[in-house]
């Protein structure tokens, strides 16, 4: 395979990663905005305690903290499994130039 063809495959791989990231962002923004809109505005009744999970208000846990932990897991998977090493100079295999 020529260097130009290798560059093309590397570009296509980067494009795939681009769409994965954009899609993941879309899922997270829907989760974030929908969860906040549904639960964040519920003020506790007079005298009632605020519902909490591990000390944070329950809506914060499900809108912010849990997605944050889930997001970290996704990033970990993305960076270790989905994202591929590529040549950065576009002419050789990554093993030959990148280390």
């Amino acid at each position, binding site marked *: *395979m020529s260097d*130009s*063809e*290798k*560059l*093309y*495959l*590397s*570009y296509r791989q*980067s494009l795939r*990663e*681009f769409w994965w*990231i*954009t899609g*993941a*962002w879309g899922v*997270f*923004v829907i989760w*974030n*905005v929908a969860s*906040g*809109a549904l639960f*964040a*505005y*519920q*003020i*506790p009744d*007079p005298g009632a*305690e*605020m519902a*909490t999970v*591990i*000390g*944070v*208000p329950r*809506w*914060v846990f499900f*809108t*912010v903290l849990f*997605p*944050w932990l889930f*997001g*970290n897991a*996704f*990033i*970990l998977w*993305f*960076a*270790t499994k989905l*994202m*591929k*090493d*590529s040549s*950065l*100079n*576009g002419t050789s295999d*990554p093993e030959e*130039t*990148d*280390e």
Partner: protein
Amino acid sequence: MSDSAILSASSIAGDAALVTFGVYLVGVFILAWLANRVQAKKEFAGEYFLGSKGLGLWAFALTAAATSASGGSFMGFPSLIYTHGWVVGWWISGYVLVPLVSLGLLAKRMNQVGRISGAITLPELLRRRFASNSVGNVATLLIIFFMFFYLLAQFKAGAEIMATLLDGVEPYENIVNSVESVTSGLPWIGQTSGDYLLCLIVFAIAVITYTTFGGFRAVVWTDVMQGVVMALGVIILLVLTLSQVGGLKNATRQLTEMTPPEFGFAVLQSSEAQSSDRFFARGTWVADSTGEPLRLAKATVIPAGDTRSESVEILKITTPEEKQKLLSSMEQGVEGVDLTTEPYAYGAGERGGYVTAPGPSKSNPVGFMTVMLAFSFFVFWNFAGAGQPSQQVRQMAFDNTKTLRRSIILVMVFFSIIYFPLVIVFTSARVLLPGMEIYADRVMPEMAAHVTAAAGVPWLAGLLVAAPFAAVMSSVDSFLLMVSSGVVRDVYQETINPQASQKSVKRLSYIVTVVVGFLGVFAALNPPQFLQDLVVFASGGLAAAFLMPVVFALYWPRMTSRAAVAGMLSGSVTILVLYLVGYFVHDKFGEYNLFGLHPFIWAMVVTSLTVIGISLKSPPVDSALVEKYFGRKPA
């Protein structure tokens, strides 16, 4: 905690800050000297502006993270959390994906196209990608224009943080008095307060010197040190805060009961006239005529022989549990009379506001956080960050894709350590430090002083208060280098003198970095009051101008040079127009959120449509150029 205890803790923090800052400066100068030694062995421009594209894991990850965390992360952000409560956690929650979006979206292609083209700046990369001088020139002009606002705002932030932290430290106050006596009669400079002037000059000289001397590598190395300081500072602050507030659940329970305070005015009246003036510092607690606590938002005095002060701005606490706790903190022999107060525009008298949305607001009748604002910021944090040229240029500097993959993970850990823990710390700060609304921007150093003093380790405040120093410095140095690279590499070397020798480029780089730095200082001597709005405008403008054009340039072979120019200009114009509309609608400098969305989102839409439309209407792109940057599809 009594006011005297707060003041003494602040003083201890000030002494620690002085020592910390001294140690800090020594550290950055050593790093700059080492970077300069490395520089001497390499090709000058590539090393000075991009560290020879050889950044490894820690350097690349922490320079990206530290540059992203500006002074706002450690001063403005804590102040917002303290003022509005848990809802600010929602406001910042988009940061969960910032490591992925800001590094994963563009970095691999940016680095690849940068290497293929041999570019070391963003305008140079765009110029070569499209083989068009017009593209490079427009990019250079937009960077210099928007970045200069950023630079002078960060100088101002650096000087103010330093002045805040050193306030009350005796040797420092003596020098401030000397400076004021020298400069008071001078034009332009004389209008500036002595403490701000002194801190601005010391801060600026330090940053300009190490940036000029060490270039990009010094900036990156100091970013690594600053990143470590920030992360350590937040972890220590979190542990001390949680132990003193009695656990997170207890803090949230107390926060649920809180109602917003009221700002207003009162006259201080003493029981009998004194033979000398009686001074009251800002932050002093006094009782009103019914025994309820008021806090002075400004210093005031009851003159000798009199029993009343002039009317002074105060803060009235409204939460019953807080009032009880403050009874022992109030100044004796004086009370606040002729009291007038104004309730918050949203949330007044309602418990639960600090643990739910939209969060209390002093001036906004719909509260702090609407659903559309939540959406806007989830877009803004991720994509405006990815669109900053200061981040994009760093993405050309890592050494291989393994470094990139590991850096995404490291930045993820860094942001997770910084942002959510800060929300926990400063919602708890409402419980530990009531009445901080009078100077909410000081809540970070005050918390550092409070929790370390209460834990019996006041010297540790030095490390905690170094975090904001670190955050501002790591932003200033990057912006300084961006502007000077724009002038030297993209204007002088590309346009005026392409045959310039390495020696003359080196000399000019040093001169331009120093000159740009001091121009920033001069502009920051008397900064306009709406400067913080200009910062948001500048970051939005840069992202609007560069994000979508760069995305298309890297991923769409059909994009043309004409579309690149039109895309950058349409993004900038959209921002400018929506700020102009905002000026007429609000009668002050600020953005206009059309349908509740931030102008940056509209700019992204306009830029994308412009780039696609003009590219499709333009003649096809030179196939050799496409093959050079995108390769050829295998048969």
